[in-house]
């Protein structure tokens, strides 16, 4: 090694060593009592647990951490995308869903073919992500957007499977959230050769990968077959993630955090990044898992470490964000005019008619007691309508609010992926409600709303702070939003694993169930929707001018900071009020503004009106489908809309190529 590269490598070496030492110290605290105890005759519990649970668990943590980090580093290197990782590209979620489906419908597949099932799932997820990404020249954003969409879709479907098989899938749930709990050496011993083989393959492609740094033209000139190289690297990364998911479930964020830390601590050349990421991933997961076990004590086995890594990984990422060099410039989206679906002036009335039809269907068509589709029987029509009305109108109001919030955020940030869900604003609201549920014995509607708004506004304040400092580099905002959403998911996952009944309420609510909505909630949501959406309509001039850039805005005398602040605040309130009824997962805030624009509604006011109608209508339909399709059981509206919305959005993305 040359002098310069040694100097450069010092940073990552120190960070890795520090992390490993910390992990070792905590691990020693766990191991020491078992070693010091006098050996007992017969079944020596401390020794047995040390040998067949604690130590294999550590080995598994090291291997899984290394594999995920290597996978993330490979993705980031080959895609030249600092946001890429098994988590953000939907690879782990794909494997997880495939395993959940196999567990339910083809358990015979799982014995020997477990890895194959996982690889199939993650491979399909990867293929979809790249198919969508390829159309946009593999721009980092479109890849991560597709990845997120697929991740959410897989997550929603897994959640539905879980809800419909609640009692049966308890273990699947614990495992799905990434539990490293072990009862023998079989998992680490089977992971070792698999991961080792792929690590060797990765070592072989390091040199050509380094050449890729020269840029595609330069690399081709040197005789590199870029497509082939890409395929090998991506296949290796996908397989690594699938092996880990198959063995221990989804371990969130290690694959994103480890390479990020490696780069931030000074790793530059591809070989450095790959090697140090791998080592850091190993010590990071070891540290996280030892910490979890040490702090959780007897509960440790039930705490999904994968969720814990997300809780710790995401704030770390938030802290590091300002230091992240935006090496990869975002392809500035061409200011697109109306999409291909452009319907023209008829779009708005058409959207309104559709939403009215949706409401009528949701109110009047349902399943009778014997399961047949029917209008409510005249004798009980008023009771049935009394049951359906609050849910329908809460869904309508919430969908509309999310859609308008989405329009505001997309116009404000110039980021077509901005939406309450993606930016983490819904996650902030969820966080607020979580605090309310755990801090107040029985939070009423007003305090839930207050806490939700507080959470949403805190997230927005953070986004705004970023936007002031860095001109709102979409990359950072998006990364922060992903981090926050994952964190909230993880916190709720942990609470649920703890078995606290309040967490059960949270989980149901997060899935967007309208079951508990009563008249008062529905009226509150509707009133909030009318007031807030009317306010949003009144800001149409700002929303038309702000996307044209700061110069244009200042030229027409628009107060830049205060108008942005006001709009962000409005979007936050809209998101909070909506999240309260339909949960944070719904996807409507991303989908409806796109659909409105596709339909030809380009200016702010018509786009908001169209999006509100589309969003409200979609949410109503989602609720209706959820109530009727597995009657008398129910699927939460938020999950249905995510399940239906995701493929739809992918279709849209494909058309935009």
């Amino acid at each position, binding site marked *: 090694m040359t002098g310069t590269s040694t100097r450069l490598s010092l940073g990552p070496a120190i960070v890795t060593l520090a992390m490993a030492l910390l992990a070792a110290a905590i691990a020693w605290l766990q191991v020491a009592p078992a070693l010091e105890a006098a050996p007992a005759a*017969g*079944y020596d*519990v401390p020794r*047995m*647990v040390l*040998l*067949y*649970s604690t130590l294999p668990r550590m080995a598994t943590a090291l291997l899984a951490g290394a594999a995920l980090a290597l996978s993330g580093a490979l993705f980031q290197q080959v895609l030249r995308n600092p946001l890429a990782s098994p988590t953000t590209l939907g690879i782990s979620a794909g494997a997880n869903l495939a395993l959940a489906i196999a*567990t339910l419908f083809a*358990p015979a597949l*799982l*014995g020997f073919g477990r890895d194959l099932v996982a690889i199939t799932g993650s491979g399909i997820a990867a293929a979809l992500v790249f198919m969508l990404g390829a159309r946009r020249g593999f721009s980092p954003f479109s890849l991560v957007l597709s990845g997120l969409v697929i991740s959410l879709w897989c997550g929603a479907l897994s959640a539905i499977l879980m809800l419909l098989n*609640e*009692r*049966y899938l*308890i*273990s*699947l749930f*614990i*495992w799905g959230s990434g539990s490293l*709990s*072990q*009862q*023998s050496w*079989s998992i680490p011993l089977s992971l070792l050769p698999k991961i080792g083989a792929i690590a060797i393959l990765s070592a072989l492609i390091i040199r050509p990968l380094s050449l890729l740094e020269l840029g595609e033209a330069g690399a081709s000139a040197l005789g590199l077959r870029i497509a082939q190289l890409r395929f090998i690297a991506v296949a290796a990364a996908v397989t690594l993630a699938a092996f880990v998911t198959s063995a221990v479930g989804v371990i969130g964020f290690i694959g994103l955090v480890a390479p990020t830390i490696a780069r931030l601590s000074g790793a530059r050349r591809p070989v450095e990044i790959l090697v140090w990421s791998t080592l850091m991933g190993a010590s990071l997961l070891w540290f996280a898992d030892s910490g979890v076990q040490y702090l959780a004590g007897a509960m440790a*086995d*039930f705490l999904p470490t994968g969720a814990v890594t997300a809780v710790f990984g995401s704030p770390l990422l938030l802290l590091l964000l300002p230091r992240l060099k935006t090496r990869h410039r975002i392809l500035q989206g061409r200011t697109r005019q109306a999409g291909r679906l452009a319907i023209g002036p008829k779009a708005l009335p058409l959207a309104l008619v559709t939403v009215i039809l949706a409401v009528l269907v949701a109110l009047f068509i*349902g*399943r*009778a*007691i014997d399961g047949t589709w029917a209008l409510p*029987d005249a004798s*009980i029509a008023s*009771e*049935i309508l009394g*049951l*359906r009305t609050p849910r329908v109108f809460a869904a309508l109001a919430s969908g509309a609010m999310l859609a308008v919030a989405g329009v505001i955020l997309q116009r404000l940030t110039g980021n077509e992926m901005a939406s309450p869900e993606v930016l983490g604003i819904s996650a902030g609201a969820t966080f607020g409600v979580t605090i309310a549920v755990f801090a107040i014995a029985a939070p009423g509607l007003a305090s839930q709303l207050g806490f939700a708004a507080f959470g949403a506004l805190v997230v927005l304040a953070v986004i705004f702070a970023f936007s002031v400092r860095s001109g709102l580099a979409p990359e950072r905002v998006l990364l922060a939003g992903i981090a926050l959403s994952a964190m909230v998911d993880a916190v709720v996952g942990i609470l649920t694993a703890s078995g606290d009944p309040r967490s059960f309420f949270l989980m*149901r609510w997060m899935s967007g*169930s309208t*079951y508990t909505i009563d008249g008062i909630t529905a009226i509150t949501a509707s009133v909030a929707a009318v007031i807030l959406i009317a306010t949003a309509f009144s800001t149409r001039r700002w929303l038309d001018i702000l996307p044209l850039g700061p110069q244009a805005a200042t030229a027409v005398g628009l107060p830049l900071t205060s108008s942005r602040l006001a709009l962000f605040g409005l979007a936050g309130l809209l998101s909070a009020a909506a999240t309260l009824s339909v949960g944070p997962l719904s996807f409507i805030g991303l989908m409806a503004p796109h659909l409105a624009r596709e339909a030809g509604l380009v200016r702010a006011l018509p786009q908001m009106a169209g999006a509100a109608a589309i969003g409200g209508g979609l949410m109503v339909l989602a609720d209706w489908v959820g109530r009727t399709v597995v*009657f*008398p*059981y*129910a699927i939460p509206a938020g999950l249905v809309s995510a399940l239906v919305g995701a493929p739809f959005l992918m279709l849209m993305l494909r058309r935009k190529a």
Partner: protein
Amino acid sequence: MAALPARAEGVPTKIVSLDYGLASTMLSLGVTPAAVASLADWGRWMVEPEMPASVIDLGNSWEVNFEILAALKPDLILTTPYLDTLLPRLEATAPVLRLEIFTPETGEILPAAIAATRKLAAAIGRADEGERFLAGAEALFADCRRRLEPLSPPPLALVSFMDARHARIYGAPGLFDNVLRKIGVENAWKEESNFWGYQTIGIEELSRITDPRARLIAFEPLPGDVLPKLDQSPLWQALPFARPGHFSVVPPALMFGMVNEATRFASIITRELESGS
């Protein structure tokens, strides 16, 4: 209560149950429920008594389908403290009978289940059938005890596996523990459990059961991969229960049930001990 006529006027006949134990008790009192919550899973957790095909599924017990309740217009809804969040809405729909069996204050479950059976029987005008049913259950327990006594049965540890590493183990004051005492079998697990009657443990903790005769009974349904994984697990293989003849898997019996589930449990255990020793 005994003074009540067997079929009084105005006694509820169209009854729905949100609880498996209460629904199976109704069947034993000779009344078919109009609807039962989570009926789709009945076969997986209850098996018997068989639910007549006419009974309607009310949907998930946490999210009871109120549209069905509105259409059914039941005379009575049977519920438990477990579903108290639904109580205000249920009460607005129809008369509700809330029977307490599993609460932190209950203590011993079987006596509470017997008392709840009497209350239920009285409320639906089946007091005589209730007494006959309870007497039948006592006779069954006594019969099991008589059959087991000469076998001098080993102490039993009762578990449901959650995965290959963790299990729920049933102890005092749970339903299973109560029944074991009734039929003269020792519960090998001596520790106090929560008011539902179980405790969640790692399988290595089973080594705390020191009686060399003790046997381990696991209930169906087992998560799919548990048995193959136990086979590979040194933690399990080193336990005395891994020796041949010390571990068996038996058909499902609902641990959160009432008298019917208690007699089903007693019969399963008695049959198992008679065949296995």
